[in-house]
């Protein structure tokens, strides 16, 4: 996803460790997720030793959903973040009253959305197929934008970040959960051994698709480290940008505010 622009106008994007034509990346990522959609949670379980559910839970707790708030969950896939957001906001509403919260699950991949819809539809929860780089939502329409384990698959990250900023209301918050860089050498070594050896092999055994899993592992390593990504979020206009490492930096939560 780091881009390079050369004089002969060839713009490339990283697809795992490979450089591919800038315009090709979105389609290639779609291929990975079409293939992975039915076993998506399993994939995250493998990459995180099953801990991604705990990380998401910690993110929602920090997000502190309130009655009447509107969430856009980008790369929301199967809808688990939106459901957790609405559950928490509804619990507060039962205690204190207020308007119901609402959420839109937005994902570029229709198969992922359908997998999520099969798990159940509910009131105040909508679904839309979107490209994060040009969101089809009104400016200043959301109290919160979240993206979990999705930003590294976006081709033009700067465009997506400025779109997240645009659709947020003033005072709105952006929460991004993503695999990141372990903060100690020992953990990084262990995680590398696991991810580069075990995961593609398991991808082959479990879903007969080594390449997709190889891509996922490589795309995690290609993603900017915590401080570099925080700088990108600031460049998109967010204020008070903060990083919280989860599980020694295997994942990181980046937060920013639209002032």
């Amino acid at each position, binding site marked *: 996803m780091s881009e390079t622009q050369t004089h002969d106008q060839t713009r490339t994007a990283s697809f795992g460790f490979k450089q591919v034509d800038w315009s090709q990346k979105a389609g290639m990522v779609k291929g990975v997720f079409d293939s992975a959609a039915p076993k998506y949670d399993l994939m995250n379980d493998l990459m995180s030793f099953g801990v991604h559910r705990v990380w998401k839970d910690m993110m929602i707790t920090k997000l502190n959903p309130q009655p009447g708030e509107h969430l856009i969950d980008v790369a929301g896939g199967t809808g688990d973040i939106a459901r957790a957001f609405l559950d928490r906001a509804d619990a507060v509403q039962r205690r204190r009253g207020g308007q119901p919260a609402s959420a*839109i699950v937005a994902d570029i991949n229709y198969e992922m959305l359908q997998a999520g*819809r099969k798990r159940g539809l509910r009131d105040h929860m909508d679904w*839309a*197929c979107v*490209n994060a780089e040009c969101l089809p939502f*009104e*400016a200043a329409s959301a109290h919160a934008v979240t993206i979990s384990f999705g930003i590294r698959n976006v081709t033009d990250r700067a465009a997506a970040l400025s779109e997240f900023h645009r659709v947020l209301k003033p005072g709105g918050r952006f929460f991004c959960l993503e695999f990141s860089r372990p903060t100690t050498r020992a953990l990084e070594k262990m995680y590398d051994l696991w991810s580069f050896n075990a995961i593609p092999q398991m991808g082959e055994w479990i879903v007969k698709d080594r390449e997709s899993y190889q891509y996922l592992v490589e795309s995690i390593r290609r993603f900017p480290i915590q401080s570099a990504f925080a700088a990108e979020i600031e460049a998109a206009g967010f204020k008070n940008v903060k990083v919280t490492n989860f599980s020694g930096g295997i994942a990181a939560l980046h937060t920013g505010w639209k002032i």
Partner: protein
Amino acid sequence: MNETTTKPAAKDLDPKLLEVLVCPVTRETLDYDRASQELISRGAKLAYPIREGVPIMLPEEARELED
């Protein structure tokens, strides 16, 4: 199970979603064509399809409109 009677038909677009949706190209509001299940962007001359109640807001998946 009479969920279908209390909830909007799964194939129809939620009116609340329509309120916040804009054309990703022009950022204009959209017209909902219920018969064809499309969201029309006059400015971009594109019709975004709705599949099973899910609007597909990708220009490359939209139908180009003639004048």
